[in-house]
């Protein structure tokens, strides 16, 4: 039975949204010209916000440190451009709330190059120094969560990482950033993978790619060298194949126990974009100051895959793509299944922003909600085998405590249940409401 499961290369449940990648999957990555204004929020990763080390009026170089980590689960920030700091203060963030950020005016005459020798030689670094270097390079998970990468790499004593898993699933519809990176920069991907594998002491590197990217699989296979222990695993096209724990299940047949991390099953997972960022820093001296963003969706005139300096406003990105079509109703940062809507075009592109997707009437029409008829489609969709139908009912009744008995905290908010619901019940939204309430609830004085 176990052997059978290992051969299947799949996780159970999940959904099959139309992938909508035709718009951009064959478009080469282009660089967005440098603009004038940049806003770098201090809290653009999961964890403690960074601490600014520059003040208004300071001149900064491209790639210069502008904020240091505010704690262990925090990373550094670097200036995306050569220019001058214009303000360190509160700016409106993606979620509409004001949050501290550093604003930089770009120098219009600068060549905007980075010092290629800025990074330390990774081979001579101890593991601790390497991990600290990753933190100081500001590298976070680029798949969307923006979880600081050095935290993932910090493995407690006695835990061994045997497999380095590189996540090239890109299961979110519309997004093609990892796809294009795998096609256009396979050398950088394999270089970054080798750095990580050697530093972690892993036995092998596994690159997991969904079957709808045969060109990426083919390109990477061509660049493999026999002395590098890398294998490519083709995965079934299914959402959320790129969710870390689902991918581990697909590739190794192992379930990461609830509440534990991939390292507990001897695996370290990194997104393609993250691995390329590792190579760009250690081999080319560029900290995380720019990323690849897919601009797509029915409301954008010229869809594209773009290298965007962090802190560039969505307005500038969209303008480069020919502006918004009439009928634009909503802009999502990230993918259409898990991304976040933005309230204003002035919010900046962040480290975790894999896409800027512009949607029109069809995707945002207010869908009539029907009563739950317990058809069970959400149960068959949930990759965590939860009972979303029950959770949604309890959440509507505000019976949040009872939801803990139904393992509400195992939910990763992938949105499969809402996608599958024929009654248009906002299931994942109801679950989030409950989770937020449970987390923020004040404990009564003991």
């Amino acid at each position: 039975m176990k052997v059978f499961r290992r051969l299947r290369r799949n996780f159970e449940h999940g959904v099959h949204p139309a992938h909508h990648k035709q718009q951009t999957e064959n478009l080469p990555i282009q660089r967005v010209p440098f603009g004038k204004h940049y806003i770098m929020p201090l809290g653009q990763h999961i964890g403690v916000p960074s601490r600014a080390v520059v003040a208004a009026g300071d001149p900064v170089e491209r790639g210069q440190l502008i904020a240091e980590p505010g704690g262990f689960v925090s990373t550094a920030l670097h200036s995306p451009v050569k220019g001058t700091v214009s303000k360190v203060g509160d700016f409106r963030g993606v979620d509409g709330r004001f949050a501290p950020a550093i604003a930089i005016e770009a120098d219009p005459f600068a060549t905007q190059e980075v010092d290629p020798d800025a990074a330390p030689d990774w081979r001579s670094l101890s593991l601790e120094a390497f991990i600290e270097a990753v933190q100081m390079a500001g590298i976070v998970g680029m798949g969307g969560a923006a979880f600081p990468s050095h935290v993932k790499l910090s493995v407690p004593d006695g835990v061994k990482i045997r497999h380095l898993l590189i996540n090239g699933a890109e299961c979110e519809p519309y997004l093609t950033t990892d796809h294009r990176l795998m096609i256009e920069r396979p050398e950088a991907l394999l270089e970054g993978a080798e750095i990580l594998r050697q530093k972690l002491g892993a036995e092998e590197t596994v690159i997991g790619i969904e079957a709808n990217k045969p060109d990426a699989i083919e390109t990477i296979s061509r660049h493999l060298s026999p002395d590098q222990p890398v294998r490519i695993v083709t995965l079934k096209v299914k959402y959320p194949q790129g969710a870390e724990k689902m991918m581990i299940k697909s590739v190794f047949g192992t379930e990461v126990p609830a509440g534990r991390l991939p390292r507990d099953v001897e695996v370290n997972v990194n997104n393609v974009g993250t691995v390329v960022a590792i190579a760009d820093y250690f081999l080319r001296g560029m900290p995380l100051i720019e990323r690849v963003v897919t601009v797509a969706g029915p409301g954008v005139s010229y869809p594209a895959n773009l290298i965007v300096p962090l802190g560039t406003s969505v307005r500038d990105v969209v303008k480069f793509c020919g502006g918004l079509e009439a009928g634009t109703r909503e802009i999502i940062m990230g993918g259409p299944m898990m991304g976040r809507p933005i309230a204003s075009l002035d919010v900046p592109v962040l480290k975790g922003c894999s896409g800027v997707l512009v949607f029109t009437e069809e995707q945002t029409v207010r869908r009539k909600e029907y009563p739950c008829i317990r058809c069970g489609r959400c149960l068959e969709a949930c990759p965590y085998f939860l009972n979303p139908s029950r959770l949604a009912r309890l959440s509507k009744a505000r019976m949040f405590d009872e939801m803990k008995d139904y393992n509400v905290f195992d939910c990763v908010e992938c949105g499969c249940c809402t996608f599958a619901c024929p009654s248009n019940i906002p299931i994942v939204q109801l679950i989030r409401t409950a989770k937020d309430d449970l987390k923020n609830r004040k404990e009564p004085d003991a």
Partner: protein
Amino acid sequence: MKQKDPDLLLFHAPLLRQGMTTPKAMRDVLIALAPATGASLWFFGMSAVLVLGASIAGAVLAEWLFADRASRGESLRDATGVLTGLLLGLTLPPGLPMWMAFLGGFVSIALGKVIWGGLGHNLFNPALLGRAFLLATFPIAMTTWVSAHPEGGFFSVYAGNLALPFMQAPVDGVTAATPLGLLKFEQEVTPLTNLMLGKIGGSLGETNGILLLLGGVYLWLRRDLDWRIPVGILGTVVIFSFFLGLFDAERFPTPLFSVFSGGLLLGAIYMATDPVTSPVTPRGAWIFAIGTGVLVMLIRVFGGLPEGVMYAILLMNAATPLIDRYTQPRVFGHGAEKQP
């Protein structure tokens, strides 16, 4: 040339949907039932039209009457009232007085659905609840079966259909017992081909097994139906009757006879699978299905009634919340082995 920014909405992801909606699923069931409904017209002529029409009218009237004014049109559009009325109608004897069918449809919606809180909240299958009501209230009329094809052709009507309300239903000249009744009370076995094609006495919708199966396949292809439930019920019935046959092949029905006789196919494919009143978990669906199958056979073979599908499903409906509670699926990563 400054352009005004669009007013951006903040709908929470996921923005994509799979395309199926609840009213569409209801309409699919109506489509799946169309061939069997057509067959009932073929066999019972105008009487089928009258009985089905009356029960649908009763159901829709109750739906309309009890809906709040704002959502009145909406609750009619989602087709659930029509579906319940049709399902009830298909379980009724062709010679039933129209006013009883109408009352049954009304009760199905009023007591089967509305008082529970409307669609999605009822414990029992509304159509079967309506039928149980009729059987308890009008036991004679509900068990008076007529043979297919009224003598005068399509447009002739069984006399019983036109009986006035609260008058004794006149017993029709050509009565015919159902195959299960024949087996139980007269030890007479109906040939299998008659069972499959519908040349038998019985309720409007239960006589043509092939068309009912066809509709089930359609629903399965459209992913509107939990295949575990019909497979579980029919499988249980087949196995149960197979073992009974080992004891006494003369006295007990053969597996195929059990499957194609009575309302089993109609019940297993269209009523037990009602998502609202059946378990939502996969393991629960198996328990529900096997329980229904066992109850059907127990009632048919050892009970006082020739047919037990209705009570079997209603009893298992009552157990559904309990089944759901104890069959929650194992959550990913819980109790899993740690190492590959």
